[in-house]
């Protein structure tokens, strides 16, 4: 993680920030310290050591702020220091119940695993699931390594460190070689109060394994400002395939920091979709690291925001090896005073010939006070590559709107139709019909509630 | 003019031409026919000197000298012209600029005077007129937005301009409807001359109705398996490659 000084181009002297933990960080440090102590003797030494290291990283740099280039548009430190989150009433998402489809359900309530509300972990086939608070004796090296890894180029080291230091629970999942899971795994995070502990998940798909992972975040009960931290480390062995879908619909008391890092070996395929219907502040970091040739990563996402919501999608795709493909398609709908941030960086190393990397970010600004910030970035050191990015920001197409109205469709309906069409593309890329339908349903409900009618 | 003897060519480490021999004299038109993957395009690229086509055995002698070590532009200056199967689109580079640069580079290489802009314009207009090519087409960037037919006619125009001694036509018929094909063939026929040899590479007999060859060769498995006159093409059309190849084997 580089903590470069943020500047878009010339102008203004860089201001040196003394990166020490001040008042904002103090309560977090205290809590984490006592938590680590409480776990002594209850978990392996390697985990204790890693937690302490994580805490040190957080102590060194604290919460990132806008002078850190990767956090230029999301000043987390200021947000947390002012954390009397707004009282706007937005953020009601359809509750996704696993009963809507057959799944291996893992329920976490305020960050703690709820065994009673989850599937029976002892009767699974093709997959092993261990909880962070359980006996970790059976973990393989790779799982241990992922669990403890905090240096991810997107998520700030300090945040990742804090997550590791404080994580109370988390699912450590291993899909066995060649297994194709017939049911999706559903990590269901339900939040009820202000005291929420971070969760840390690890998913490894061994050679040729296939699985679908659904992550949902809901928390209608949360009234007090709450900081939710989630980390997910993914490793796909050769030829493994993971469909990974995330949906977030949290009330405005919540701040969610979610980091996903996926390591792809040869011919592996990662398909990730996100649907973000808010939180006061939502930062979603996605890091894709290509480690073997012929791998593919397709990332798509939609965010629909209202009130004062702030949603930041930050993506880093590291093409370190040749012959891999990546694509990003993100669509944003911004109303009220919401702010959308899209930062997508593609790095192509000198050896990574025949890389195919494409990136698209489109945003609709539907209010005078909404804001979009985009930074689609290409850093390319190999010559035989095809890389592109495109970014647009604007309002609904006047001509299309007129066309619909000329056919007798009322303005509000016409707008809703066009917005729905606009965000449909990323969601339609979801292969699993049940999940796709639920996501689409969530979008429809959001549109019905939102004040897109003028 | 051109003698190819027992030519072996590797592409990406795989042997594509496996001992091809062909003798072409001035004024002759040779058709090389073959199924997909027989090595037709490899032959055209190795003759024109494209990188990545490694000669591992045999020889190519052109006007008495070996071609093998020459760069593409040197071969072009010596009169070798390849009409591409898929002529490249080059946005930003005007057709006129391109042709003038090419002509003058070749003239310079041969120790001839370069043409100034006015003489070149005169020349290209005349050539375009002979071939019934709309001069408007030449104002556009090279091949950009050209139809398949226009691209192929532009290749013929370049051939007319550069006046090669050996022209290689690589699947010139691909992607053309019958009218476009006739136009292109007329252009090519107008360029037939006793000093000029042509190698017409094609998959289908159809083209040879319009560009009538003196000799027809069947290429299969990287070598010529059968040669004959134009009737061989008709025979191929009737009984297909499999039968001819099997018979030859």
């Amino acid at each position, binding site marked *: 993680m580089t903590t470069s000084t943020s500047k878009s181009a010339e102008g203004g002297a860089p201001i040196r920030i003394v990166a020490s933990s001040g008042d904002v960080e103090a309560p977090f440090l205290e809590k984490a310290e006592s938590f680590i102590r409480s776990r002594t003797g209850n978990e392996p030494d390697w985990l204790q050591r890693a937690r302490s290291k994580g805490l040190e990283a957080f102590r060194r740099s604290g919460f990132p702020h806008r002078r850190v280039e990767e956090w230029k548009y999301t000043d987390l430190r200021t947000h947390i220091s002012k954390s009397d989150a707004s009282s706007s009433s937005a953020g009601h998402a359809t509750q996704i119940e696993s009963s809507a489809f057959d799944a291996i359900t893992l329920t976490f309530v305020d960050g703690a695993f709820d065994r009673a509300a989850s599937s029976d972990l002892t009767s699974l086939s093709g997959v092993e699931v261990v909880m962070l608070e359980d006996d970790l004796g059976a973990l393989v090296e790779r799982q241990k390594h992922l669990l403890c890894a905090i240096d991810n180029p997107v998520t700030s080291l300090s945040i990742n460190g804090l997550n590791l230091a404080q994580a109370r629970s988390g699912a450590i999942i291993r899909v066995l070689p060649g297994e194709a899971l017939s049911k999706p795994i559903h990590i269901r995070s339900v939040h009820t109060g202000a005291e929420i502990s971070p969760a840390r998940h690890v998913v490894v798909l061994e050679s040729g394994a296939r699985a679908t992972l659904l992550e949902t975040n809901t928390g209608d009960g949360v009234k007090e400002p709450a900081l939710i931290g989630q980390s997910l480390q993914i490793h796909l062995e050769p030829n493994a395939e993971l469909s990974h879908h995330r949906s977030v619909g949290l009330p405005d008391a919540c701040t969610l920091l979610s980091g996903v890092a996926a390591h792809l070996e040869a011919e592996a395929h990662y398909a990730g979709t996100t649907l973000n219907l808010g939180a006061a502040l939502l930062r979603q970091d996605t890091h894709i690291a290509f480690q073997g040739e012929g791998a593919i990563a397709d990332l798509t996402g939609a965010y629909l925001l209202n009130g004062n919501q702030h949603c930041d999608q930050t993506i880093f795709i590291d093409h370190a090896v040749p012959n891999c493909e990546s694509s990003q398609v993100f669509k944003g709908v911004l109303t009220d005073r919401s702010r959308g941030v899209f930062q997508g960086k593609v790095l192509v190393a000198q050896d990574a010939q025949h890389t195919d990397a494409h990136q698209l970010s489109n945003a609709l600004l539907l209010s005078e006070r909404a804001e979009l910030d985009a930074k689609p970035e290409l850093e390319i050191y190999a010559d035989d590559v095809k890389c*592109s990015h495109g970014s647009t920001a604007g309002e609904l197409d006047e001509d299309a709107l007129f066309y619909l109205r000329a056919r007798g469709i009322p303005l509000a309906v016409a707008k809703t139709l066009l917005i729905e069409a606009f965000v449909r593309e990323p969601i339609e890329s979801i292969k699993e019909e049940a999940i796709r339908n639920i996501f689409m349903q969530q979008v429809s409900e959001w549109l019905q509630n939102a004040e897109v009618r003028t | 003019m051109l003698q190819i003897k027992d030519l072996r060519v590797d592409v990406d480490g795989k042997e594509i031409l496996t001992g091809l021999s062909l003798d072409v004299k001035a004024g002759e038109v040779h058709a090389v026919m073959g199924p997909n993957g027989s090595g037709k395009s490899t032959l055209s690229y190795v003759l024109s000197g494209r990188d990545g086509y490694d000669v591992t055995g045999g020889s190519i002698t052109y006007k008495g000298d070996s071609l093998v070590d020459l*760069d593409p*532009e040197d071969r072009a200056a010596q009169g070798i012209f390849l009409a591409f199967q898929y002529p490249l689109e080059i946005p930003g580079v005007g057709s006129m600029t391109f042709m003038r640069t090419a002509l003058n580079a070749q003239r310079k290489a041969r120790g001839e005077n370069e043409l100034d802009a006015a003489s070149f314009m005169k020349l290209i207009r005349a050539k375009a007129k002979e071939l019934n090519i709309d001069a408007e087409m030449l104002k556009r960037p090279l091949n950009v937005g050209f139809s398949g037919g226009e691209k192929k006619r532009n290749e013929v125009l370049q051939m007319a301009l550069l006046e090669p001694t050996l022209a290689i036509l690589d699947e010139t018929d691909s992607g053309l409807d019958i009218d476009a094909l006739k136009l292109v063939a007329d252009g090519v026929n107008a360029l037939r001359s006793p000093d000029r040899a042509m190698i017409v590479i094609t998959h289908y007999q159809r083209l040879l109705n319009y560009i009538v060859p003196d000799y027809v060769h069947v290429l299969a498995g990287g070598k010529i398996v059968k040669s004959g006159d134009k009737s061989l093409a008709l025979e191929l059309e009737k009984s297909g490659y499999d039968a001819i190849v099997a018979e030859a084997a």
Partner: protein
Amino acid sequence: MPAVDETISEVKGLGEKYKYGFETQILSEKAPKGLDEDTIRFISAKKGEPDWMLDWRLDAYRRWLEMTEPKWAMVNYPEIDFQDAYYYAAPKSPEDAPQSLDEVDPELLKTYEKLGIPLKEQEMLAGVRNVAVDAVFDSVSVVTTFKEKLAEAGVIFCPISEAVHTHPELVKKYLGSVVPVTDNFYATLNSAVFSDGSFVYIPEGVRCPMELSTYFRINEQNTGQFERTLIIAEKGSYVSYLEGCTAPMRDENQLHAAVVELVALDDAEIKYSTVQNWYPGDAEGKGGIYNFVTKRGDCRGPNSKISWTQVETGSAVTWKYPSCILRGDNSVGEFYSIAITNNYQQADTGTKMVHLGKNTKSRIISKGISAGKAQNTYRGLVSIHPKAKAARNYTQCDSLLIGDKCGAHTVPYIESRDPSALVEHEATTSKLSEEQLFYCRQRGIGEEEAVTLLVNGFCKEVLQHLPMEFAVEAQKLVGISLEGSVG
């Protein structure tokens, strides 16, 4: 070369009453190495500046002391010791200058030849002793005619050091009004120590009768390493200004930090074209100019327009973002750029389009070409403020890589705070097509010429925005800059 300087200042003085003869006679001295307040007083005194100008410089210097060098650009170079440089260097003595072209680096001469630069002019550019401007132009009459024509139109075009005396009210009003003294480290340094540069004032309703260029090609070499340019286009006026030279110039100074400020008032238009071809260092990356430039235009009045066109092929390190502040309603900003880096060159360049007014429009076309072991970065900001109703931006950034040891990077920042604005950004990165290269070669075009042809094709959209006379030379320059990049 006092003779040269004399001639130049005489020529410059034509048409203007040149009452402050402070320039040439005392040039034999130079300030001691290093930078402190005394250096600045020395520079100011040498120029016979009024107190307000000295105070302005000193203020800048004091602020500069508090600042640190920016580090965010994707360029690497050894730490610069700002105390190990001369800030007021007199021209080299005639004994040091080459006696004839025979003594000039043959590589430099080859380049001149390829660009088709006349012999006399070559001598001038190479700094050969005793070549005067009038010799280059055959007679002083060209310059005189030029000056007369401008004077007739009421256009003021003179060294900024002269404008400080002749038009203090204009300089006071506009200097630092676009690029504030403390804008950035290098701009502040420039404000403290700027050597010279151009001052252009186009009166209301005047269309400047000529490109401000021809004359400049020769004279500009003495503006020094801390160039300062100020162009003011009054209501309804138009000017096209051409800076730089396609021919590489001899230059002993490694650090260049120029500031250019443009002000376009209501309905005015400024077109600013640059060809930057400073010494890029040798093929091993030794030497070369560090070029840290701050260029900014302020579309201050409604319906004004500022258009930047740049061809950047020189310098070891380039750090440059010609920008537009689109303040006036309906104002237009344009940025057309070609940046070519070869060998070990590094360029971090782009633009900022800041949309403040209604219906403001901006267009960015950037073509980056990277070869050898070079690094080429486009960095740009498009910012739409809440009051910029119906603002439009279109950005296209294309990068071309030649060889597998170089890098091409695109770092756009897009900030939109108005729903009626439309911001579009597209970027591509690809390599020089082997198929296209082969196609050209099959037609008999040699490899280097084919590369030139293809790269010029890639750049066409930008080249066509250069003034005619320059476009031809710039095209040749593209080829020369890429020599040795293939094969």
